[in-house]
C-alpha cells in the first residue's frame, strides 16, 4: 500500500511537469495548427541562460524569473522571425521548420556549452518526508512542482475565460478570419501565443532540470511525454493537457514501479495507442462542428 501510494505521488509530480509541456504545445496548436517540436529545445536554451544567471551569484528566484522572461521573449522572437513568414502556407512547412530549429538549437547548445552534465539546484528539498512512521516519497520540491503548474493552469484559465485579451485569443484560435472581421488584430495575438507557450515550456524545464540535470538534450524525453499527454487530452484543450499530463505521469510511474523502469517509454506509447483507438480526437477535444 505504501509502495502504491509513493509511486502514485511520484506519478502526480511527473504528470504535472508533463502537463506544463503539453499546455505549451496546446497553446500553439490550437491557435495555428502547428506542433512546435522545438519547444523543448527552446526551453533548454533558456535553462542554460538561467544557469549562467545563477552562477553570476544571483539567487534561485532571480534566475527563475529571468528564465521565464527570456522564455517569453524567445517564443515571441521565434514566431516573428521563423513562423510568421510561413503564414498562409501549409502548417506542415512550419512544423518541419520547428523540427529543424530543434536540431539547430541542440547543436548550438552543444557547441557553446559542451555535452557535459551540469547540475541545477532545486529551490526546496528533494528528500521525501516522514509523516508519523511512514516514509512518503513526496518532497517539498514536489509540492512546489504541483503548485507551480497549477498556478500556471489557473493563470491561463483566467486569461482565456475572464479577460478581453483571452476572448480575442480564443477567437483567433477558433476562427481567424471571423476574428479579423470583428476588428481583432491577429498578428500580435499569434506572437503572444508563442510567447506564452514558450514560457510554459520553460517552467516545465525548470521543474524537471533538478532531477534530470542540464545537458543539450535533457528536454527530449519530457517533450515526448508532453506530446503523449497532448494527444491523449486532445491537442486543442488546455484542460485536456492537464488530465493528459496526469494520465501520462501515472502510467509511467505504475509501469516503472511494477514492471521495471526500462518499460516506461513503452507505457507512454501504449497510452497513445489505446487513447487513439478509443477516442481519436482526444479526451477533451472540442466537439466536432455539428451542421444543423
Amino acid at each position: 500500500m505504501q509502495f502504491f501510494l509513493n509511486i502514485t505521488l511520484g506519478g502526480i509530480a511527473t504528470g504535472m511537469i508533463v502537463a506544463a509541456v503539453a499546455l505549451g504545445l496546446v497553446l500553439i496548436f490550437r491557435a495555428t495548427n502547428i506542433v512546435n517540436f522545438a519547444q523543448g529545445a527552446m526551453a533548454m536554451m533558456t535553462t542554460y541562460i538561467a544557469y549562467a544567471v545563477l552562477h553570476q551569484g544571483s539567487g534561485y528566484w532571480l534566475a527563475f524569473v529571468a528564465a521565464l522572461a527570456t522564455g517569453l521573449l524567445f517564443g515571441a522572437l521565434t514566431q516573428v522571425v521563423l513562423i510568421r513568414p510561413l503564414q498562409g502556407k501549409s502548417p506542415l512547412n512550419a512544423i518541419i521548420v520547428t523540427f529543424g530549429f530543434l536540431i539547430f538549437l541542440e547543436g548550438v547548445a552543444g557547441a557553446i556549452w559542451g555535452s557535459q552534465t551540469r547540475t541545477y539546484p532545486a529551490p526546496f528539498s528533494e528528500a521525501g518526508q516522514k509523516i508519523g512512521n511512514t516514509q512518503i516519497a513526496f518532497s517539498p520540491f514536489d509540492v512546489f512542482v504541483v503548485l507551480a503548474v497549477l498556478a500556471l493552469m489557473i493563470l491561463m484559465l483566467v486569461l482565456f475565460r475572464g479577460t478581453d485579451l483571452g476572448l480575442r485569443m480564443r477567437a483567433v484560435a477558433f476562427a481567424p478570419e471571423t476574428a479579423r472581421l470583428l476588428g481583432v488584430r491577429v498578428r500580435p495575438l499569434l506572437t503572444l501565443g508563442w510567447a506564452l507557450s514558450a514560457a510554459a515550456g520553460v517552467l516545465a524545464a525548470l521543474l524537471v532540470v533538478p532531477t534530470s540535470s542540464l545537458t543539450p538534450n535533457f528536454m527530449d524525453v519530457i517533450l515526448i511525454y508532453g506530446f503523449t499527454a497532448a494527444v491523449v487530452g486532445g491537442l486543442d484543450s488546455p484542460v485536456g493537457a492537464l488530465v493528459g499530463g496526469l494520465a501520462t505521469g501515472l502510467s509511467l510511474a505504475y509501469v516503472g514501479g511494477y514492471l521495471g523502469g526500462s518499460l516506461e517509454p513503452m507505457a507512454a506509447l501504449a497510452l497513445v495507442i489505446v487513447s487513439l483507438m478509443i477516442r481519436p480526437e482526444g479526451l477533451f477535444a472540442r466537439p466536432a462542428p455539428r451542421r444543423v
Partner: protein
Amino acid sequence: MPVLEIEDLSVSYGAVHALTDVSFSAAEGEVTAVLGANGAGKTTLLRAITGLVRPRKGTVRYDGEQLEKMSVEKIVRHGVAHVPEGRSVIEEMTVDENLRLGSLFRFSRRQRGPVIEEIYALFPPLAERRRQHANTLSGGERQMLAIGRALVSRPKVLLLDEPSLGLAPIVTARLMAVLRDLTQASNLIVVLVEQNARSSLSIAQKAVVINLGRVVVCEDAAKVAGDSELRHHYLGY
C-alpha cells in the same frame, strides 16, 4: 450624405476574372440588393470591400477613405461590418461571448452591457440562450447571432452574404423585416447579397444584378421586381 462607392472594381484569382469593372453606389438608409446566379462574383464583391481579397484595380470609397488600401481590421474599425456566408458564429463560444467579441473594439467594458442588451431586444430568441454554446443554436438563431454580432459594434455599413441560405421561409421573412426596419431606423448602408431574389427585392430600394463578374443591371429594386423579362433572364423566377 456618405455613400459606399465602388468604382471599376476588378478582382482576379490567378487567371480567373471574378469581377470586372464593377461600379455602383449604396446610399444611407437603403438596402442595396446584389443579385445573381451561383459563381457570379457576389461573395467576392463583399470580400473585396472588407479587404479579405485585394482588387486588381478599382476603388472602394466610404466616408472620404479609400478602403481598398486599408487592412481588414482597419476597415472594420472604420464602421464596415461583414457577415460572411454560412452563419459564421464561433461555435466554441457562448452566445454572450460571441456578442462581446463583436463589441470589443468599439466599446469600453462599461458600455458593452447595454449595447449587447439592445441586440437581445432585437433578437429575443438569443436572449434565452445567452449562456449556451453557439453550436447548440438552430440555423435561424445562428444567423441572428451572426448579424447581431456585426450590429453590436454599431457599424455604418452592413454587408450581408446570403443570410437566408438554408432558412425556413418564415424565418427569412422575419429576418428581412428586422433588416428593413433597422436600415431605416439607424440610417445604415446595407449591401445584401442574395440568391433568393424575391425576398431581398421585397426590402431593397436598389438592385444590382451581377452576371459572370459584370454588372448587368443597376436599377430601382421596384423596377427590377416589376420587369418580368429581366427577372426571368437573370434571376430565374
